[in-house]
């Protein structure tokens, strides 16, 4: 089993030695080589769990804990990690289903998953609506009379709710799931293309990304505006994740292990770190040439700015280099909470969004002091951990008592994917 488990490729390929071994042990494969189900790739769970925690903290009003989130130290943030890993795991799970059971069955399973995400989104919207209505009727502060105009949509609940069901009306912080739904809906096509020619698929994806920038393609939303995460741009990260899962990572291993890559990544990360610092310490601006500034800004999140994408790539490259997949720390009790959360990402993601709403509410009612703030963040993370543990426990018990289903574990691996 161990030699098969080695084939579980990921962005993980740790070093030249390992890749060399793989090249020996893997016979000439078809265009896509599906990793065989072996051990769970704990690093994926770990980083998805981390992304979920960071997204939760980023959704709360800024506090001390916000300084631990990566968006303060570079261009990209937790969303990139989440979408990439989702693409990776989705391709991993449903790509296998497509090979084994054919296009139709795999598509049906993907649609079922997309439906689950959709229902989760609608559920969150309901909670959001309740919170907003409460704020609208209880908040009295002349300082913000203009901002409170945002509540006007409550005057037309019929239109608002229908638009929300169409994914066109989306409150702030509820943008990730609609993006995810659209990406999942396009997954059958992506996978079918990948089966044909993975590199061409990736190239097409990059082409769509470029076209999005060139022709300013976007999806509109209600009552006006646009999708905060443009699916036509963000699909690049998702497809790239899928491409890595289906053998791309292994083929990239030589590039990943070269010292040049390491240096390029390191230099870029330092540069990004420095630029980010100038946002918080304006005095440092003096050392950033105006020309660079004008070329660089604004760093667009909606359309996944190239600088953000590159920052994510650099982070990922460095991570897989220094964190081998057999790192013993992955089994340590300290990382267990993160891994658990990452293993149930859809549930925990939704819970995180809900907890962020709840946290806003508690802070608003409680006065919003720094201590309360820290407590809310901490409680939120503990709850996420607790629920993840509960789901794990339940699945474990259910698996034991229920009839064994062949590939049931796969959907679990897909987590949010």
């Amino acid at each position, binding site marked *: 089993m161990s030699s098969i488990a080695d084939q579980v490729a990921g962005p993980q390929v740790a070093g030249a030695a390992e890749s060399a071994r793989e090249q020996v042990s893997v016979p000439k494969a078809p265009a896509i080589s599906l990793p065989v189900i072996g051990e769970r790739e704990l690093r994926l769970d770990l980083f998805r769990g981390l992304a979920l925690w960071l997204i939760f903290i980023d959704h709360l009003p800024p506090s001390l804990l916000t300084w631990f989130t990566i968006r303060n130290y570079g261009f990209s943030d937790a969303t990139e990690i989440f979408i990439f890993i989702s693409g990776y795991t989705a391709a991993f799970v449903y790509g296998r289903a497509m090979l084994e059971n054919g296009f139709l069955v795999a598509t049906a399973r993907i649609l079922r998953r997309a439906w689950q995400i959709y229902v989760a989104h609608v559920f969150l919207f309901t909670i959001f609506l309740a919170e907003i209505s409460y704020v609208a009727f209880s908040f009295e502060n002349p300082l913000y009379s203009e*901002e409170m105009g945002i509540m006007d949509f409550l005057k037309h609940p019929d239109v608002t709710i229908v638009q929300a069901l169409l994914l066109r009306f989306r409150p702030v912080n509820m943008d990730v799931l609609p993006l995810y739904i659209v990406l999942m809906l396009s997954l059958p096509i992506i996978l079918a293309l990948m089966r044909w020619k993975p590199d061409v698929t990736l190239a097409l994806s990059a082409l769509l990304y470029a076209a999005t920038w060139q022709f300013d393609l976007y999806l509109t939303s209600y009552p006006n*505006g646009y999708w905060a995460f443009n699916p036509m741009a963000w699909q690049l990260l998702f497809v790239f994740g899928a491409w890595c899962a289906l053998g791309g990572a292994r083929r990239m291993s030589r590039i990943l292990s070269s010292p040049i890559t390491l240096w390029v990544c390191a230099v870029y990360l330092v540069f990004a770190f420095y630029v980010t610092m100038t946002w918080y310490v304006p005095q440092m601006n*003096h050392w950033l040439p105006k020309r660079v500034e004008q070329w660089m800004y604004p760093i667009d999140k909606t359309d996944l700015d190239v600088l953000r994408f590159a920052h994510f790539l650099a982070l990922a490259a460095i991570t897989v280099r220094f964190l081998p997949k057999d790192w013993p720390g992955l089994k340590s009790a300290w990382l267990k909470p993160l891994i658990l959360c990452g293993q149930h990402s859809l549930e925990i993601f939704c819970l995180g969004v809900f907890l962020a709403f709840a946290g806003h509410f508690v*802070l608003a009612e409680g006065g919003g*002091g*720094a201590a309360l703030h820290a407590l809310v963040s901490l409680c939120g993370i503990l709850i996420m951990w607790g629920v993840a543990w509960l789901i794990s426990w339940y699945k474990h018990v259910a698996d034991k008592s229920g009839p064994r289903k062949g590939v049931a574990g796969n959907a679990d691996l897909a987590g949010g994917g």
Partner: protein
Amino acid sequence: MRPGLILGLALLAAVFAAQKVRAEDAPASCDVPSSLLESESSLPRVAEAVKAGRPLNILVVGSRSSTVGSDAANAYPAHMEAALKDKLPQLAASVSVEIQASKTAEEVAGGLVKLMEGKRPTLVIWQTGTVDAMRSIDPDDFRTAINEGVVAMQKAEADVVLINPQYSPRTETMISVPPYLDNMRAVAQQRDVPLFDRFAIMHQWNEQGDFDLFSAHHGPELAKRVHDCLGKALAAFIVNTAHVGSAQQN
């Protein structure tokens, strides 16, 4: 489980105790870090007018967050005028305000030159972004509009100061302000125009505990005090950026 529970309760109690102490504190001053009160860009026309002893006409163009209630004397432009006269007693400054309620930057930008006609302001302070954020206008269109507005005002021989949206924690789950802050910063850098970072300043006050901008139940008093402080900060910002203060206070 039990010790954990007790610990949790103790923590909770401590937090609420801390909360109470904080609430009883006397209203703090509204200090602003000096980096938020200066800019790399400059205000050459303002500096020239002050040095030549000419009167300084200032036009404030803003949305409803440039007002408090119906009395203009409570809003930050009036406080800024008073603070300017304090800082530069010899200066004859006159401030006029044009409120463009619920208009996007694009809608305002087209009419800016018209607003300036007749008043011939030396300085135009353009407060914008809130309406665009509420309507989620495409940030690219927003940036284009700001850029056009700034260029038009500069062509009409005025210095420009941009003011970004307020920090509004209560509506953070409903209005996504960051893209608009970023784009205003980008235009300010590109056009070499000073940006008065109202968002960062108010955020700072909330963090320091000067103002509790979270709480739901505030009468007009809080709003008035915030605007008073904003007006003073804005005056300091103008004086520092134009390098005309005899003593660069605060």
